[in-house]
């Protein structure tokens, strides 16, 4: 099981003002706020923590099918680029990659290497971003299982949780897109 999330830093900078009054207090716990205050680059730290929370939320909802908006409930504990995110009695490992143009987080129950594949969506019509991503995911799965692509069907549950159906077997996946970047993990 996996949950992942990508933040396009240019898009985040354009679309969100994290310095807006009460913004950070709505999303982060007091411990996280302290961490943001003490760090060298608050912009990167805010989006890093955000992507960790989103990735953990996606993993949580794979395990507990539901839908809600509670970023503050998912608390991040960080050491280097590995972190732990906790929500109630749920706990997972979240690895993060910080590149010049994006931040990528991947949440799993076990401590393993990141496997998320990144796709640049620059120049593509925004409307087709999720289709491009799904197509790439299905191609990857068809290679992995050595079955033709027609055997795989992407679907979302009533809670918006993605899975791929292959001959009545459900494969858990995670996808995310933001601005010019998309990512998927199996």
């Amino acid at each position, binding site marked *: 099981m996996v949950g992942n999330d990508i933040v396009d830093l240019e898009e985040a900078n354009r*679309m969100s003002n994290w310095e*807006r009054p*009460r*913004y950070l207090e709505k*999303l982060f716990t007091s411990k996280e706020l302290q961490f943001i205050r003490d760090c060298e680059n608050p912009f990167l730290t805010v989006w890093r923590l955000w992507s960790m929370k*989103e990735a953990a939320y996606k993993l949580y909802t794979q395990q507990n099918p539901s839908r809600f908006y509670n970023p503050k409930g998912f608390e991040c504990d960080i050491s280097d680029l590995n972190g732990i995110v906790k929500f109630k009695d749920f706990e997972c490992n979240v690895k993060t990659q910080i590149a010049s143009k994006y931040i990528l987080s991947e949440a799993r129950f076990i401590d393993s290497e990141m496997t998320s594949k990144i796709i640049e969506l620059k120049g593509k019509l925004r409307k087709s971003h999720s289709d491009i991503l799904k197509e790439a995911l299905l191609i990857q799965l068809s290679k992995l299982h050595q079955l033709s692509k027609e055997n795989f069907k992407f679907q979302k549950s009533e809670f918006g949780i993605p899975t791929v159906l292959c001959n009545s077997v459900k494969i858990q996946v995670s996808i995310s897109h933001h601005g010019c970047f998309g990512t998927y993990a199996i």
Partner: protein
Amino acid sequence: MTNDELITKLKAIIAPYVQDEKAFENLTEDTDFINDLKVNSANLVDIILDIEDEFNIRLENEDMEKMLDVKAAMLIINTKLEA
């Protein structure tokens, strides 16, 4: 405030964050911020802050948790205004 007045105010708040204009034109109480309007989840907090400012109310974490569609937003605003 009537429901129509409330929806009009909400539409003005949501407009800057909408990424699917067609769904926005056809907005109803059942419209979902993320699934229908394609609002980015990081901008949902902006909508929440704008609602707080517009109606002079404060939303707690429990209120935010349900803020996924127009209907839920209307219910939360009405409940806070009556309190």
